[in-house]
């Protein structure tokens, strides 16, 4: 269990993080969203015990990051946004070095396991500098995993990766969540985050504007359902009928034969509404909900201001 309590960080009088609080449970994959300079990296670095919070704190399974940072470091795996590897060593030597620092027992076995998990087994004896960017990202993730951490802090893990490497990384992160680890991922690639994160937080100028599971965060910005109706019969009649419905908040004509309708209520109301249109003799070619996504939420909640 990770509990972040009113975390503040000020640099020379300038507030970079202003009272962030949230909590995550094992298996949670938390997408941390924000513009550049919003405070994501500062928050992650505080959780990684690299920066001391100005005030507030966080606890991981009851251990406070301020009171016992060494204990915390044993429980976290941190992957920075920009990182370098020791390029003069081989893949297994790199992992062995960090495994020895973390005091891992049976290092050979553990290294083989994390290499298999990150699909780098074939590169075990290659020099680190010979790896592609995507492989280096995976190696960095493997390094984070050698000591079996409970919390993974991944700062922009997908930056600079090609689509295939991104897909592989996404699958790997989802697998880590299934293994019961708490994963915090910061990213700009919002559609991808919504694919594998079960909760998200949106940060701007050091303030957490929204936090929760993806569906609830999306609902928070759009309580109504937005439905797009493609009708091949008389659109005027349909518009009149739709406007008379108590469930419709707003109806707007889009193009020659389409309506964009804001509906109140849940899924049942949506189904009833479709049935009433068909029963009214209207020929509906297409009826689909225009679902809000994280990008809409992000654009609606944030102003683009940065620290």
């Amino acid at each position, binding site marked *: 269990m990770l509990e972040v309590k009113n975390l503040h960080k000020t640099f*020379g*009088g300038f507030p970079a993080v202003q009272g962030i609080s949230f909590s995550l449970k094992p298996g949670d994959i938390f997408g941390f969203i924000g513009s550049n300079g919003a405070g994501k990296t*500062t928050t992650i670095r505080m959780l990684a015990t690299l*920066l001391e919070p100005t005030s507030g704190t966080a606890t991981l399974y009851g251990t406070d990051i301020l009171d016992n940072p060494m204990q915390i470091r044993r429980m976290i795996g941190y992957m*920075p946004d920009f990182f*370098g590897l020791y390029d*003069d*060593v081989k893949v297994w*030597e790199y992992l062995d070095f960090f495994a020895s620092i973390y005091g891992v027992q049976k290092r050979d076995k553990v290294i083989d396991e994390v290499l298999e998990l990150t699909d780098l087994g074939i590169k075990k004896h290659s020099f680190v500098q010979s790896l592609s960017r995507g492989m280096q990202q995976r190696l960095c993730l493997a*390094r984070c995993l050698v000591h079996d951490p409970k919390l993974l802090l991944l700062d922009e893990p997908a930056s600079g990766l090609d689509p295939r490497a991104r897909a592989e990384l996404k699958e790997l992160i989802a697998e880590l969540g299934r293994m019961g680890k708490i994963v915090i991922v910061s990213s700009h690639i919002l559609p991808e985050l919504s694919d594998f994160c079960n909760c998200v937080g949106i940060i701007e100028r050091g303030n957490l504007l929204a936090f929760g599971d993806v569906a609830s965060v999306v609902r928070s910005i759009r309580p109504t359902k937005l439905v797009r109706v493609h009708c091949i019969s008389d659109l005027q009649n349909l518009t009149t009928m739709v406007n008379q419905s108590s469930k419709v908040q707003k109806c707007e004509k889009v193009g020659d034969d389409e309506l964009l309708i804001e509906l109140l209520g849940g899924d049942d109301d949506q189904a009833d509404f479709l049935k009433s249109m068909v029963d009214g003799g209207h020929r509906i070619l297409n009826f689909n909900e225009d679902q809000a996504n994280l990008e809409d939420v992000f654009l609606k909640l944030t102003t683009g201001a940065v620290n």
Partner: protein
Amino acid sequence: MKVRQGPWWEVLITKNPMMAEVTRFRKRFLSIRGSSVAINGGIGIVLVLYALFAMVCVYYRGDIEPIMLLGLFIILMLLAIPLLLHGSISGERERRSWDMLMVAPITHAQIIVGKFMGAFAGLGMAFGLFMIPVMIDAAFHSESQFVNVLLASITVMAQGASLIAMTLLISARVKRPLVALAVSIGVVMIYFVIVPMVMSSASFLLGQFLTTVMSPFLVLFRLTLNTPAHENDYYMVRNEGQSFDVILVTLCHIGYQTILTICLLMWATKTLVFADHEVKFIPKKKKKNHA
């Protein structure tokens, strides 16, 4: 942010996970199977030079003052240590691998001692190889006293230790490896060229004892002359009025270098604290406005 888990020697030496640096240093600089062409080429050149040096020592065995050969090793150290170690911390910062160490469950002192021991073990290995032809020469040298050779060897290693500590400190205090290299060479120049010149010109005030204690070259020179055959040498006669025990001077020098090494390492450990706060978002001008 420091947790001590036992006696200092366990925390810093016997149970220090950063001792893995010893292996890393050896693989990086003392192995020809590494990935770096530059380092492999450098090792190749050094091996050729070493072979030549060994041949000269064996051919002229008994004719070359073995202790003076150790002066050659000090000169090599003055060049090699800053060259090899300037990036040990600043280089990690530059290539962004430093954060990985900082989030590991180890103290700053463990990091510094680990890096120091890695370099010192490498130095010891190089010195051991260097000493093979020197010892062959010493065995045949009629005036050699092995106590003097032993003391000279410890003097060289003590000097090497303080040089490593100094380079680590500079590497910890600056952000860019090239700056660290320039500063290290500058400090070496000041300490081994300018300071001896100043001290030698002021030796009438400071005395021969202090001047000698400060300089490893003078210590080696004194040890070379510390044989019955050199009793009537010009240098010994000239300093007759200020004669002192060479063994004592050497031990004082070793003690001085050891204390200097410990102080520099402690300073480097304290210096690492600023790396915790190295993320700076606000330029100085803006900072002033906010203040």
